[in-house]
């Protein structure tokens, strides 16, 4: 059973080299700060965040390639802090493939098991099991230099799972590949996971990749956990402004707004803009006149109002037809508010329209802390 639990994990990289001039450097900031999460046996977890958020450090700590500054990690019931990497029963695949160039694909896959002194029979059985899973069964006699990038990465992942590890760790495995190959391999990784049901953690900066692969996503920023949830949860209910802006494409509109009273309800108003949009009623108990908020609403959740609203008319700034969908923009001060719709509609630039937000799909964030107001 390979259930992974991280408890209050900290990591700080020390400046190892002592300066000649004995200048005291301030200690580095934590690369990982108080990170706790757990995943069930067989779960597919995505660790997602911008570069420098600590996601790879976390993975390397789980793998045993970095020491813990503080905190504990458990695989199953075993505390792994002081276990050597080889004793952690982990399979690891990095972005660059690190295959042995003089060995055939078969020997590359067999390498770890040979090192452990497994019999030829066992090795053959294991290789023949994983090779078709990642569609490398036709490549077994080839050597790495003859393979394409996608094929190399397949071999690399196959090698990571050939020993049937309790935990599979993937660090940006698709970043080197081009669009089409990336999609194919994404499907195959997901199917491989479905087949062997090995607890898997993938580190990525691509939100699409995390959303499409993972059962649950861990979103990190500056070494700290921002939110953990299923793809739909983090998309529909972002915990804060950062998550809201990071997840989803086209990106969420995030606008600073002042709320004012108007008649029975409230209106969103924006600096340097005449735009006024009705505040959905469900917020009435949380807001007051003059309150500052950051309004978050996805392009698919804004639309041109069909009926007249209490809001103001604004001119269309741009209209684009992308075939699959239409994108429409209006200007709000120095920002653009984007709308997206699959419907076949057409607007002229400059045409005056009113906007409407889907009530249940608007999010308010505290402008200082970025926390969600709910």
């Amino acid at each position, binding site marked *: 059973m390979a259930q992974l639990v991280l408890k209050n994990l900290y990591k700080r990289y020390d400046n190892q080299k002592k300066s000649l001039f004995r200048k005291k450097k301030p200690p580095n900031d934590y690369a990982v700060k108080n990170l706790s999460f757990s995943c069930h046996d067989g779960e597919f977890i995505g660790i997602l965040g911008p570069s420098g958020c600590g996601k790879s450090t976390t993975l390397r700590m789980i793998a045993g390639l970095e020491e813990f500054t503080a905190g504990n990690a458990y695989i199953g019931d075993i505390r792994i802090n002081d276990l050597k990497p080889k004793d952690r029963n982990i399979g690891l695949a990095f972005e660059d493939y690190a295959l042995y160039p003089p060995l055939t694909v078969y020997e590359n896959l067999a390498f770890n098991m040979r090192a452990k002194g497994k019999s030829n029979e066992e090795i053959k059985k294991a290789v023949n099991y994983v090779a078709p899973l990642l569609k490398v069964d036709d490549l077994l006699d080839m050597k790495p230099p003859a393979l394409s990038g996608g094929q190399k990465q397949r071999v690399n992942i196959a090698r990571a799972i050939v020993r049937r590890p309790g935990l599979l760790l993937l660090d940006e495995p698709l970043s080197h590949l081009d669009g*089409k190959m990336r999609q194919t391999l*994404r*499907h195959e990784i*997901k*199917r491989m996971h*479905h087949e062997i049901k090995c607890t898997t953690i993938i580190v990525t900066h691509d*939100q*699409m990749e995390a*959303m*499409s*692969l993972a059962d649950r996503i861990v979103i990190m920023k500056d070494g700290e956990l921002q939110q953990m949830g299923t*793809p*739909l949860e983090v*998309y529909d209910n972002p915990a804060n402004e950062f998550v809201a*802006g990071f*997840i*989803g*494409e*086209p*990106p969420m509109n995030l606008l600073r707004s002042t709320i004012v009273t108007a008649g029975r309800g409230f209106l969103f108003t924006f600096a340097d803009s005449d735009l006024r949009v009705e505040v959905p009623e469900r917020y009435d108990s949380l807001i007051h006149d003059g309150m500052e908020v950051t309004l978050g609403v*996805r392009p*698919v959740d804004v*639309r*041109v*109002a*069909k009926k007249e609203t209490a809001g103001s008319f604004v001119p269309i*700034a*741009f209209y*684009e*037809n*992308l*075939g*699959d969908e*239409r*994108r429409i*923009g209006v*200007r709000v001060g*120095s920002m*653009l508010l*984007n*709308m*997206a*719709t*699959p*419907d*076949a*509609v*057409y*607007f*002229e*630039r400059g*045409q005056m*329209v009113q906007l409407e937000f889907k009530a249940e799909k608007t999010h308010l964030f505290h402008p200082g802390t970025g926390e969600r107001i709910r």
Partner: protein
Amino acid sequence: MARITLERIVKRYGKNVALDGLDLDIQDNEFFVLFGPAGAGKTTLLKTIAGVEFPQEGLIKIGDEIVNHVEPMYRNVSMVFENYALYPHLNVYDNIASPMRSKLYRQDEATIHQQVERVTKMMKIDHLWERRPSQLSNGQRQRVAIGRCLVRSPNVFLMDEPLAHLDAKLRHFMRGELKEMQSSFNSTTIYVTHDYMEAMSLADRIAVLNYGKIEQLGTSLEMYYTPCNEFVARLFGEPEINIFPGEVEEENGCLGVRALGQQELMPIEEDAAQVLREKEVRQVDVGIRGNDISFSFTPREGSMAGTVYANEPIGNKVVMTVDIHGTHLSLVAPNDTQARIDQPVYIRLNMKNAIFFDGQTQEYITRSQAQSHICSKGMPISERG
């Protein structure tokens, strides 16, 4: 402002042919996009017009003048480079002013001030005059680069993937900004990109390039709805169009396609069937977009049985890939769709929107005109049914 004409341009680098007898006629004031995969010859073509590269054969005309042997500086073109190429030691104001301080196009300082003010306002960087490039964000640098290009009124603006270096989020917003500014460009613009959304959004016309040749020339909607071959069809749209082979057969006087190992023929709209009859095509490739496939987890009349190969939530939608007798079809599903891998699923194709290609040559044959694909004007956004 000028019309640009290219006649049978050939450009070779050693043995490699980068441009292979290319003809192009770009209208005055047109926003023209060169689109294609890496290595198609887009940037080479742009450089040929700029005068940085010289073609071995063919004529380049700007206006009515043949410019093959005119030096770049005398061609009166203005270019934005992919990597911005700003002067690191000059501030934003001086960077943007620099084209007007060159020997050839010198203006007096009062005019320069006025022009810099105009474009920085337009690009919304008028508060950044004093900053150096190193003190700017990527998005701001990119705006400075475009501003420097727009500050003069040249014959033609040349833009080489100006948004390619920005991250995905910023690219969305910058494309919107560019689209909004477009009408104030007031000159012929040639824009290179490999992002189909940029191409469709900005272009008056698009030329799809591949191996130094033009595959198709037309508006963005022509590219999307009537691509001239399967290569072009695959370039536009997300998820990529599904294309599968089939055989045209007649049953009870109606034409249909036998494909995907199905018992029943897939219906072909009458007007498309007419064309297929006249051309006597038997082997076709059917192209159908993800939006034109519906699904359910229980069998329905006229649906095909398959299994879920992949189910990928990507935020506002789910892309489900369905395996039907070994062929994978991707369809777009609502964003809360849950499906297990290998679970049975039943799909129905909206054959009214199918595109038919020749099975051998992969060239476009026909599509039904039954469903109008032109967006109705001024119609408010309605709820999707």
